């Protein structure tokens, strides 16, 4: 609702950008302060023993220690590598199958209802299957990540290309765009705004699945692995420190990277102007 409102006033938003940012930052700071304050208060009430609910300061120390002994940077790096690998594989397979679905309408129709069904399938439910079929290793985790996100990529590719305004294709065809040139210079850019939305969703699915898989499929590294270590050794500081890291990564990707790309594409394609004139 709020997002829609800002989209409808691109001019105003641009003009007040600096002021908006300041108040945004102030709100965020206030929110964080309140959150930490309540946490500290609950800690001081002593409902739970310290080792089960550490104070904010203790978690900060935990994070510092984890960074100092480099287990957090390594875990983060490994997790990111897995995410990148799984995501690349998903986009590759999902993209190719999605294009095949466009090319062969019969297959597309069947596959899309199948893929929609699998879209709602909880990714964690793939874990036992992956463990038995592939084992407790990176490939098992990769499998779960791919299964969680590939169908989203597939459906997005399929629907984005099918929803390209036919006039673009006719005009391009008229100017001599055929085969690969039509695909590369018209279909891909025309589908980009909706492709980005789908890829953002696929990323979020992949991210959820990855942490879940890392907790359940035990390997030596990764954020999920650190979480399960924390559980085994009853180290709440470790657990919360890792959770904060996971939260920050999610924010950075979704709110900053994907949103920036989306905003840029929407502005260039003139999509916000449409919302404005409606």
């Amino acid at each position, binding site marked *: 609702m709020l997002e829609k409102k800002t989209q409808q006033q691109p001019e105003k938003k641009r003009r007040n950008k600096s002021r908006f940012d300041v108040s945004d930052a102030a709100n965020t700071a206030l929110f964080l302060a309140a959150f930490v304050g309540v946490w500290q208060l609950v800690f001081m009430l002593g409902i739970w023993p310290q080792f089960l609910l550490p104070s904010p300061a203790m978690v900060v120390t935990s994070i510092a220690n984890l960074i100092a002994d480099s287990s957090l940077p390594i875990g983060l790096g490994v997790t990111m590598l897995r995410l990148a690998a799984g995501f690349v594989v998903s986009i590759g397979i999902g993209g190719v199958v999605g294009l095949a679905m466009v090319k062969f309408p019969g297959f597309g129709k069947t596959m899309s209802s199948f893929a929609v069904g699998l879209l709602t399938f909880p990714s964690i439910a793939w874990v036992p299957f992956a463990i038995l079929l592939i084992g407790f290793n990176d490939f098992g985790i990769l499998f779960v990540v791919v299964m969680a996100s590939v169908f989203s990529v597939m459906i997005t590719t399929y629907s984005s290309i099918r929803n390209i305004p036919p006039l673009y294709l006719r005009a391009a065809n008229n100017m*001599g765009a055929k085969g690969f040139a039509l695909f590369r210079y018209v279909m891909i850019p025309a589908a980009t705004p909706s492709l980005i939305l789908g890829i953002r969703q696929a990323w979020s699915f992949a991210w959820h699945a990855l942490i879940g898989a890392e907790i359940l499929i035990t390997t030596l590294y990764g954020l999920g692995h650190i979480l399960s270590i924390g559980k085994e050794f009853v180290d709440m500081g470790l657990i919360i420190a890792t959770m904060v890291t996971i939260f920050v990564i999610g924010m950075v990707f979704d709110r900053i990277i994907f949103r920036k790309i989306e905003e840029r594409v929407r502005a260039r394609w003139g999509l916000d102007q449409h919302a404005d004139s409606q």
Partner: protein
Amino acid sequence: MIASEYKQKRGGSSAMLQVRAVSKAFHYDTTNSPNHAVLNGVSIDIKDGEFVTIVGPSGCGKSTLLNIIAGLDSPDSGSIFVKGERKTSTDPDRIVIFQEGALFPWLTVTENVEFGLKLAGVPKDKRIEKARHFVSMMQLSRFADSYIHQLSGGMKQRVAIARALAMDPDVLLMDEPFAALDVQTRDMLHNHLLQIHEATKKTILFVTHNINEALLLGSRVIVLSPSLGNIRKDIVIDLPRPRDIDSPELVLLKRQILKELEEDFQFARKENTTATREKTAQ
């Protein structure tokens, strides 16, 4: 004589564009009604450099005819020749300017104009130079690097014209290109288009439902009849351009065309009520 019936020269090699006995019917598979013949053996010869307007009410098949000529649609029978060569598919020798919305929003004005040249494999510096030339010809230099959504409706259509001209087509096909514009903008673009025709001597086929527009622009006006599915009248207008729509000659012609079309409407209504569409198709 300012206006005369155009005599068709069959198989003339001087023709730039030849439409030969083109027929097209639409198939309504939802009802049991017979196929509706939109075009019924239409033949047209257009000479090099001619500016032909096709006018007719909606549903007379004028856009269908244009699409068939462009190769975007295939006829049930009949054929299209450009410079005596038979054409069955799209080709950059016949470029269509659509009513609206056919420009690519992800490209700037210049990039849009460059698009066809890029496909044709024209080297980058050459095509930028060419694109800039047509962008400035359409008085869009100030907006060369703007994106499409930043332009007004009239500017968009100027970009579309620049994009088409950059391809250097043999025939420019215009499918109600100014129908969505306001009157002032349309007048401006009419003059602009006439100047361009004067300067480039391009062969233009311009489809419209607006009789004034057809009379102001065309060196020849073809009236397409929905009931015949064919040409009802083919008029050569020898008046200099820009023309005044209130001049006695044009007023006379307009009245004449309206009368023809009025008969057509009555005919069509009768056809509909007695539901003998099939007869028309034959």
